[in-house]
C-alpha cells in the first residue's frame, strides 16, 4: 500500500446517548502509517469516537471501513485494532511478560509457545522493560505501565492503534519523555497511531496530522503547523489556547474592534466576526513607545511563569482578559507593575480575521 492510502474511514458516523449526541455525522479519512492526534475538549466526543472505531460501542448510523473492509458489524475482538487505555488497564493478575504475551496466547491464531516467548521478549526489548518481566503491574511505575500497555498492543502487529489520552495518567514531569518515546516507537513500525487528547500542546507535539473535534464534529484537520498557524475558525483558535480573540465588526477591508479600526487583508469565512491574534505575537508597550500596529490600552493583572515562557495577563477597559506570551529565548521579560496601564499592540499582518464578509 502506498503511504497516502487511508487506513480507516468513517462514513457519516452518528452516536447518541439519550438526548446527547456524542458523534454528529462524522466522516474522516485516516492516512496510513502516520501519527494522528485528535484534539478535543472534554465532552467533545473524542472518547466515543475511539470506542466506536475499536468496536466497544456501535454507531447508531454510519459505516466504518478498516483496511478496505467494512467492519461496522464486527465485534471488537475480530477487528485487529489495538487500544491503549488512559488507565492502562493492565491485567493485574499477570506478570509484565504474560501481559505482553496475553493476546498471542489467547487469540484465535495458533502460535507456538516458542514463538510467543520470542516475540514477547522482542517487545520487552522494544519498549525497554528488560529485567521487569516477572513483576506484576502493581510493582511498576506509571511510565513502565504505559510501556507494558503499548507492548501488549503492538505484539499483535496491528495496523492501527488507538490511544485514549495515554499520557493523562502520567506525572507532569514524565509526560514530555513519553511523548518522544511514543513517536519513536511508532516510527519503527508500520502502524498508524490515533492519539486522543485534550491537551493542545500534546496534540501539536505528537501528530503528523491533527484533527480538532468539537461537539461531535471534526471542525479542522491538517498538519500541526496548519492548525496552529491558520486555525479555520474561532472555535479552533479557542481550543488552541494560544489566541486572544476579539469580537468586533468586519466591513469591507477593515475590522473595527476594541483596539480601533484596523485594515484587514485576508478573512476566513465564519458566521461571526472575530479578530484573533496569538499570545506570543501580542506585545505590551509603555505609553509613548512606538507601536507596530493597533493600540489597545489595558491594565496589568498578573503574570504566570510557564517555565520557558511567561504569560502576562492584562485587562482591557471592558474587562476582557488579554494574554501576552514572552518566550525566554528572546531574553529576560519586562517587569510590569500590577494595576498600571500599558498599551498592547501587534503587527496586524499576524492577525487572523474571521468574518461573514470575505474581503475581495
Amino acid at each position, binding site marked *: 500500500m502506498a503511504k497516502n492510502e487511508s487506513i480507516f474511514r468513517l462514513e457519516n458516523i452518528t452516536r447518541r446517548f439519550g438526548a446527547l449526541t456524542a458523534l454528529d455525522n462524522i466522516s474522516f479519512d485516516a492516512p496510513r502509517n502516520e501519527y494522528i492526534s485528535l484534539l478535543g*475538549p*472534554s465532552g467533545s466526543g473524542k472518547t466515543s469516537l475511539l470506542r466506536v472505531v475499536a468496536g466497544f460501542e456501535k454507531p447508531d448510523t454510519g459505516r466504518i471501513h478498516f483496511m478496505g473492509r467494512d467492519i461496522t458489524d464486527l465485534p471488537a475482538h475480530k477487528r485487529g485494532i489495538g487500544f491503549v487505555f488512559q488507565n492502562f488497564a493492565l491485567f493485574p493478575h499477570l506478570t509484565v511478560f504474560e501481559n505482553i504475551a496475553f493476546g498471542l496466547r489467547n487469540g484465535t491464531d495458533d502460535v507456538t509457545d516458542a514463538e510467543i516467548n520470542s516475540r514477547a521478549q522482542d517487545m520487552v526489548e522494544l519498549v525497554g522493560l528488560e529485567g521487569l518481566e516477572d513483576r506484576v503491574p502493581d510493582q511498576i511505575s506509571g511510565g513502565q505501565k504505559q510501556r507494558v500497555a503499548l507492548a501488549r498492543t503492538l505484539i499483535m502487529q496491528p495496523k492501527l492503534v488507538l490511544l485514549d489520552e495515554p499520557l*493523562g495518567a502520567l*506525572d*507532569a*514531569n514524565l509526560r514530555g519523555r513519553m511523548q518522544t518515546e511514543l513517536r519513536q516507537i511508532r516510527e519503527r513500525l508500520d502502524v498508524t497511531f490515533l492519539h486522543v487528547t*485534550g*491537551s*493542545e*500542546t500534546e496534540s*501539536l*507535539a505528537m501528530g503528523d496530522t491533527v484533527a480538532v473535534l468539537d461537539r461531535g464534529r471534526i471542525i479542522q484537520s491538517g498538519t*500541526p*503547523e496548519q492548525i*496552529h498557524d491558520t486555525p479555520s475558525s474561532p472555535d479552533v483558535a479557542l481550543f*488552541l*489556547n*494560544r489566541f486572544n480573540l476579539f469580537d468586533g465588526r468586519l466591513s469591507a477591508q477593515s475590522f473595527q474592534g476594541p483596539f480601533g479600526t484596523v485594515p484587514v487583508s485576508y478573512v476566513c469565512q465564519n458566521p461571526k466576526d472575530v479578530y484573533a491574534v*496569538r499570545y*506570543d505575537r501580542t506585545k505590551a508597550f509603555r505609553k509613548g513607545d512606538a507601536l507596530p500596529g493597533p493600540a489597545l490600552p489595558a491594565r496589568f*493583572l*498578573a503574570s*504566570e*511563569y*510557564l*517555565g*520557558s*515562557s*511567561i504569560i502576562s*495577563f492584562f485587562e482591557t477597559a471592558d474587562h476582557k482578559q488579554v494574554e501576552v*506570551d514572552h*518566550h*525566554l*529565548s*528572546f531574553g*529576560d*521579560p519586562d517587569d510590569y507593575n*500590577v494595576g498600571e496601564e500599558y498599551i498592547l499592540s501587534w503587527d496586524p499582518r499576524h492577525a487572523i480575521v474571521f468574518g461573514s464578509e470575505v474581503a475581495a
Partner: protein
Amino acid sequence: MAYDLQLKNVGKVYDNGTPAVIDFDLNVEKGEFIAFLGPSGCGKSTTLRMISGFETITTGDLLIRGQRVNDQPPEKRPTSMIFQNYALFPHMNVRQNVRFGLEVKGLPKAEADQKVDGILDKLGLLDISEMPTNRLSGGQRQRIALARSLVVEPDILLLDEPLGALDANLRKSIQNELKLLQRDLGITFVFVTHAQSEALALSDRIIVMNAGRIEQISPPHELYTRPTNEFVARFIGSNTIIPGTVKATQKNTVTLDTPFGAISGTNRINAAHSQGEMMSIVLPAEAVELIPGETDLGQLRETFGPNTIPCTIERLQVIGHIMQMLVRLENGETINIEGHVDKYRGRLTVGASAYVAWQSAGATIIAQ
C-alpha cells in the same frame, strides 16, 4: 517586623525515628503566594501539615503573625486548609458546606448568610448553591473548597496539591483564577506541589525541597534561570550541566576550563573562586542559541565571547510557536535547546553542523 508566617529551624522526626523535615527556616510576608516544590517524600506535605497543626513539630518554632502556635490544635489556628481531594462534606449541599465554618464560630444567622452569599458570588457559585456536591465537576468542587475555607477569613490559606485532582485542560484556567483571587484577597497562600509548572505559574516564591531540606528559595523566574545547586538544576527546567575547573573569576563572571575549552557563566554568588576549584556551568535550554554552521566564527565570538561550541543538529521539532532542538556535541553529549519558532524557522537542517552559543549572563556557575 512581624511576618505573616515564620518557621524557625522547624524539624520533624517521625515516631519511628526517621527525620521528615530538617531545619526548615522561612519567613513569609503577608499576601505572598508561596509554593513548596519537590519530589514525593521530600517533606513538603509534612511541612504544610505542621503549619496547619495536623502534624506535631519536633523541634523549632512556628509563628503566625508573630505568635508561637506550636502547641495550638488545628481548630484554634488562624489557618485554613484546602485538601487535595477537597474533602467536601458529602451529605451537605454547596451552601451548607460553605456555612459550616461560620456556624462553628456561632455567627448570627443574618451575618453568616451575608458572608456566605458574598463568597459564593465572588467564586461564581451562587447558581449551584443548593446542589449536592457529589454531582459537581472538579473545578466547581475546588471552588467550593476555596469558598469554605475563605469564608472563615483565615490569615493563611494552605493548599495541598490544589490542582492535582483536576483535568489537565482545566488546570490552566483554574490556575489563572486562583492567582487572581489571591491577589484580590491579599491573603497569604502556601501550597504544596510536585509539578514545577504549577509552582512556577502560581507563586511569588518557590521553596524547592529535597530529602527534608530546603534546596533553594527563589521567585519563579530566578529559580528557572538561576539554579543555585545541581539538584535544582536537574529538577527544574531543562538544563545542561557542564563540569569544569575555575580558570578565572571576575566580579560578574566565572570562566571554567572544560573539555570544550574555556566557557563562562554568571558568578551568582559574586565571590572570588580559587583557581582550579571544581565547578559546573548550567545552561538553560532557552538561554542557548543554535547558530547555523555557515556563520563566521569571528562574528560569533564578538557576540558570545568564548561561549561557542560546535555541534551537529540531531532533531528539530516545532510545537506550536516553539522550536525544540536536540544537538550532539563532539564528545557525544547532547544538549536540549528551545526557542521561539520565529528565531529559527527555515534556518536549520537536521544532520547539519552548527554552533551552540550563549551569553555568559544567561548561564550560571554552581558548585559541583
